């Protein structure tokens, strides 16, 4: 009666692997009814409100101390903020006033005040950025309401009798902090992004986590066996016996060194023992992720995705809005590299009138194809990037999913139209470096033809593998055929790097393969000089690179290229990585 295995994809929020039974915790709703009290009860309501404030203050003071001890400075500062807000005298006055003036119940007056604040913030509309602030305000409100209901301060703790993978719609910072670290194997939430409080605390605690899963809290039932792959943002529900065994081993071996090592490694170069230097870049989606990326030791951004703006607005964002985002990212990076990729989504994600769904979107109107069919959209985006670049910084432009020279030339023609129109009336505007993603086998096999037309390449391994082995990795029926170590993939990588190298054009890899420590030696040995990865992966990759010589890595790559099947190659790479860093994979 084995259940079928299902795979879900979310946002990788905290590194590591876990496997265990799920515990789904309910959403904490704070539906408060509008209620009035009798004249004689008003003073009592005000007193109840004041008592709740005092009790909540005591709670948070304790949480601050706890956070400082268990989560570190960043986690503590969240609660210090809550403490200050809870003591805001104007909030207290306003709520007490509203109880007195309108004979509101304390609950209703509290809820009304905080709901108003949240609504006002939401009207400001900086959605991802404000999500955290809303989370904070809602947390303060919930705490007051809990105390008004006579709740004990233990309300943050989720009772756990066994080791579980915790599944929730969302967790408040206090709930996340109160987690019993020894019993929470992993964390999965419907809501949140990689910069949410939940993600931050999970990383600080070294609990593997995947967030932004949408519906995981209803997809999973308590007791289901689930796998958390916090490195790739994948969740496997009811894994088959083989998968379960594999992840059990990975979970055992995965050693959380991130926090300890990150700070030591931050300012050391990613350089082999014999001085072969590589560049560590970050993949990001939002400018807000940059501070944390730099903290992890990123030397720049190798992939700035721009889809988010389109998806959030569900229509094309204005040129100014796009320019503002790019400028924001460039400012945060100072003079460091920023590679901006033009829109890389399929038509299916961008609803337009008259759009007929394609039978096979992966082989359909995606990425640069979508842009070339809507040249004004692409030109607006390029103009926005140039507008942002006029403020300085090392900004580069990258087209996704180029599959032929014609396509590249068409994209470049549109690019030239934009730069020509900008050139008029302004003094010698510089041309931004222009690169392409190599993620379609037809491009991988014609790097020599494409090289003269571009300044750099970046390999998108996710799609390259998918198109090479003809596997949709989210389709659980064929997912195990998705093999990054397939000899065909290795040969493609070797050739791309060699051919581009001969043409004098730099290559980075921004796909998941470069974020995965198992492949670091291979990629280093194949001659990769720019790793563009998820920020939390940087310290470990750096450490591995710093632990070998370039020759050792080259030997690993040569040996892997001589082997004939994906499984043996994967096992070999794992073993060599393990020999060098025994506590890892």
């Amino acid at each position: 009666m084995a259940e079928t295995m299902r795979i879900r994809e979310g946002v990788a929020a905290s590194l590591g692997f876990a496997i265990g039974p799920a515990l789904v915790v309910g959403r904490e709703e704070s539906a408060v009814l509008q209620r009035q009290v009798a004249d004689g009860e008003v003073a009592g309501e005000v007193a109840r409100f004041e008592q709740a404030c005092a009790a909540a203050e005591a709670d948070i003071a304790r949480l601050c101390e706890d956070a400082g001890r268990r989560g570190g400075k960043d986690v503590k500062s969240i609660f210090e903020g809550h403490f200050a807000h809870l003591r805001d005298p104007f909030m207290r006055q306003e709520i007490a006033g509203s109880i007195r003036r309108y004979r509101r119940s304390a609950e209703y007056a509290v809820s009304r005040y905080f709901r108003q604040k949240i609504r006002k913030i939401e009207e400001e509309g900086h959605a991802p950025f404000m999500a955290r602030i809303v989370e904070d305000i809602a947390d303060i409100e919930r705490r007051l309401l809990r105390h008004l209901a006579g709740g004990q301060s233990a309300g943050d703790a989720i009772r756990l009798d066994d080791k579980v993978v915790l599944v929730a719609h969302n967790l408040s910072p206090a709930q996340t902090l109160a987690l019993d670290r020894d019993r929470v194997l992993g964390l999965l939430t419907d809501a949140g992004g990689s910069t949410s409080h939940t993600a931050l605390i999970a990383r600080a605690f070294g609990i593997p986590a995947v967030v932004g899963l949408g519906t995981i809290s209803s997809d999973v039932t308590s007791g289901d066996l689930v796998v958390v792959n916090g490195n790739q943002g994948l969740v496997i529900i009811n894994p088959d016996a083989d998968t379960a065994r594999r992840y059990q081993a990975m979970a055992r071996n995965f050693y959380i060194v991130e926090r300890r090592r990150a700070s030591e490694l931050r300012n050391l170069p990613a350089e082999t023992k014999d001085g072969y230097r590589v560049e560590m870049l970050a993949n990001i989606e939002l400018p807000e992720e940059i501070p944390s990326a730099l903290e992890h030791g990123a030397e720049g951004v190798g992939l700035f995705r721009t889809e988010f703006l389109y998806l959030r607005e569900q229509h094309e964002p204005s040129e100014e809005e796009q320019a503002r985002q790019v400028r924001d990212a460039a400012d945060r990076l100072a003079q460091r590299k920023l590679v901006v990729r033009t829109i890389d989504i399929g038509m299916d994600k961008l609803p337009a009138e008259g759009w007929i769904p394609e039978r096979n979107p992966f082989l359909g109107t995606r990425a640069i194809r979508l842009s070339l069919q809507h040249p004004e959209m692409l030109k607006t985006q390029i103009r926005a990037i140039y507008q942002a670049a006029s403020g300085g910084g090392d900004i580069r432009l990258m087209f996704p999913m180029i599959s032929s020279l014609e396509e590249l030339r068409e994209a470049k023609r549109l690019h030239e139209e934009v730069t020509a129109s900008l050139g008029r009336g302004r003094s010698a505007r510089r041309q931004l470096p222009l690169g392409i993603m190599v993620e379609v086998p037809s491009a991988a096999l014609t790097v020599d033809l494409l090289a003269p037309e571009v300044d750099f390449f970046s390999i998108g391994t996710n799609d390259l593998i998918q198109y090479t082995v003809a596997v949709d990795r989210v389709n659980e029926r064929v997912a195990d055929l998705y093999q990054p170590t397939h000899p065909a993939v290795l040969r493609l990588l070797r050739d791309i790097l060699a051919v581009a190298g001969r043409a004098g054009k730099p290559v980075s890899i921004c796909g998941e393969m470069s974020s995965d420590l198992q492949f670091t030696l291979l990629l280093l040995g194949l001659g990769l000089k720019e790793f563009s990865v998820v920020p939390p992966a940087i310290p470990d990759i750096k450490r591995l690179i710093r632990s070998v010589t370039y020759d050792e890595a080259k030997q690993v790559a040569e040996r892997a290229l001589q082997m004939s099947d994906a499984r043996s190659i994967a096992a070999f790479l794992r073993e060599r990585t393990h020999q060098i860093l025994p506590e890892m994979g």
Partner: protein
Amino acid sequence: MPTAEREVVIRNQLGLHVRPSAQLASTAMRFQSDVWFLLDGQRVNAKSSLELLTMAAVCGTVMRVQAQGSDAEAAVAAIAELIDSKFGEER
């Protein structure tokens, strides 16, 4: 009644999130004067950290700080200094 006013720009990367708004309110609280921020036609009480949070001021937001009272000048200077220091979050 003495008044003082100055333009300030939020420069810390995370904007006026939980901690900076609390710092601003406690700084404003040290002065006798009434202190406000003016943004998009709104007037926000600088001594209320929750009100400040509600401004949703992201990095790059330009606003005015205004004070009225015996120590208005000093209040505006202290607020501006705190904002310029990026709340000690970055160098």
